[in-house]
């Protein structure tokens, strides 16, 4: 049971990949990408967790109380916000692709072969 979060992180990563490679719609494909990304969050939050410890905010608790890791949280929180803009960029690509090719099905995009 103690390994559940890690196993679930692996599961999310692979499910996202599966959705990505079988995708028939670019927007779907990009959402799958953000699912893969969420797997890294599950992994990171589990890594920094410490049983029984408090959140790393020392406003209501005295300094020195055992707290969970603050570094992974800092890393995640910026990443959450930043990645949404990267997703927005990818979506803009998808919109443009549709505009130019008239399709969002990766199977029908055939401009770049061989």
């Amino acid at each position, binding site marked *: 049971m103690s390994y559940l979060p890690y196993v679930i*992180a692996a599961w999310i*990563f692979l499910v996202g*990949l599966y959705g*990505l*490679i*079988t*995708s028939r719609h*670019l927007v779907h*494909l*990009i959402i799958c*990408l953000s699912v*893969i*990304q969420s*797997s*890294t969050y599950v*992994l*990171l939050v589990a*890594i920094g967790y410490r049983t029984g410890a408090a959140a790393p905010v020392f406003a209501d608790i005295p300094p020195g109380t055992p707290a969970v890791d603050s*570094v*992974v949280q800092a*890393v995640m929180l910026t*990443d959450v916000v*930043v990645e949404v803009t*990267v997703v927005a*960029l*990818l979506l803009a*690509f*998808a919109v*443009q*692709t549709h505009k*130019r*090719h008239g399709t969002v099905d*990766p*199977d029908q*995009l*055939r*401009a*770049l*072969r*061989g």
Partner: protein
Amino acid sequence: MTALPPLPVAIPLAVAALLAGLNHFVKRRASSWIAIATTAINVWFCIQLLLQSIPNTIVYWFGGWQPRHGIALGISFVIDPIGAGLACIAGVLTLAALIFSSKYFDSVGTLFHVLMLVFLGAMCGFALTGDLFNLFVFFELMSAAAYALCGYKTEEPAPVQGALNFAVTNTVGCYFLLTGIGLVYARTGALNLAQIGRTLDQQPPGALVIVAFTFITCGFLVKTAATPFHFWLDDAHAVAPTPVCVLYSGIMVELGLYAVARVYWTVFSGCFSASTEALRGLFITIGTATALVGAGMCFGQRNLKRLLAFSTISHVGVMVIGFGLLTVNGLAGMAYYMLGHAGAKSGLFLCAGIVLHRCRSVDLFELKGRTARLPFTIAALICGAAALAGTPLSGVSLGDSMIHSAANRHAYGWITWISLASGVLTSAAIFRFAAYTFAGLGPDTPKSPEEPQKTEEHPETAPGDASTPAVMFVPAALLTFAGLFLAITPGLENVLVRAAQQFEDHSGYIRRVLDNVPAPMMAAPAIPHEEFAHGLLTLALAIGLSLLYLLWERGRHSLNAAAKAVQIIRRAHSGHVGDYVTWLTFGVAGFGLAALLLLR
């Protein structure tokens, strides 16, 4: 402590934001000058850093957070000659690309300069940092700028699709990297490369460390475009504006390999020291596959930019072999090779840009005999191809022979043949392009169905000038020239060998960063020099092959028959992003399996 280290990153980024904010108040011309001036200053900073880092590695702690009791708190820049040198190359190539594009695009807006400056700042940060997560941040920043620049010509169908393939593949690579970083952090509780290395040295590597190594290395190998992670590269190159291709091929791809090497030597080399031999085999296998796939695909291309892209893949394969030998001389050879390749390949891409500007196309068959009015450009193209094949005195040739002599010591003598094949096929493809379009040698139209379909390549400029503007030709010629005669630089070889030694000094690096103990100066070992026969043979074979293809019909047919063998590989380059990610999954799984079997 010197104040110099943060500047190569901070200055371009700050200027980029300023330019973006003043988007509507700054004229195109002015913003072009600002970008060029900023880049020039950046190059100067990088050169200063390079000179300072040669006697001893520079360590700079951001925010003044020095390590306490051997625990790194803040983010560090750890600058050694190889990192600083790559930052210099990034600066010089950006400068060339900006100068080239000052007359190149008809509609180049301020945003192009903004993106180029961000790209430059990210590459410098990537080359200089000594922190694993910071490496990831700059990796992502570099990628974001690269995607944006790739899709810059949004009016045509191909760019968007190429940019999308590029972005999706590299983003998946990013997530593998981040997962790997998470695993390493869980094991060591550190993000500083030196500290991770020190912690890992204390215990034998378990499955966790091997899997983390797999994910981190594969994440960077996606950027390096090593087979089977390379599929995005030719799509991205085929669609990106030519000046941007210069940065992709000349430095971005190499930076991926640099990161693999950096992380291996600072973090993992200690705990994997017992299985160096196995790792060497693994990396050399990857390098060999990359070199051969790239070379095989290169010769079949008809779009000059795509052709050059596959040539990059092939040459990167040789660089992977150079690093993969995991010795000082191999790495020094790789650095030499990288330098020579950066010059020659950038020159070639700029020449391709000139051809596109003047002839409105880069398609082989469309251009038959039409480049006759561009004698200097074609001459530069031929010089660039010769430099890549390895004429004596070219950087590639000397780097190649350094790699060979290093390989011979470890019973990998056969890689001579790999680099021979890579050089012959890639240069022959360029020679063929030159002869066909300049002199009109060869058949009229493509008859064989094996030829890939024509890719759309729209001109990036207003039709126009009766002559090539100097701002376009001079950077192209200078870069080609640099690649062609790199080896006349006195003492460069010894400098690189010492730099490689500094780079691979695992414990010296850790002590320098965490304990502030300067690493002892080491005398550069003399390496036995190979003669230039190999390069000349490559060149002769390449010229022979291209002429054979163009002039001798039966030869061409037999070559086409041989090309059928490449057909399977070609079909894998389907332009389908799902395929690419599947190959990526396969690559990571294969690497992981091999690493687990070999390193336990």
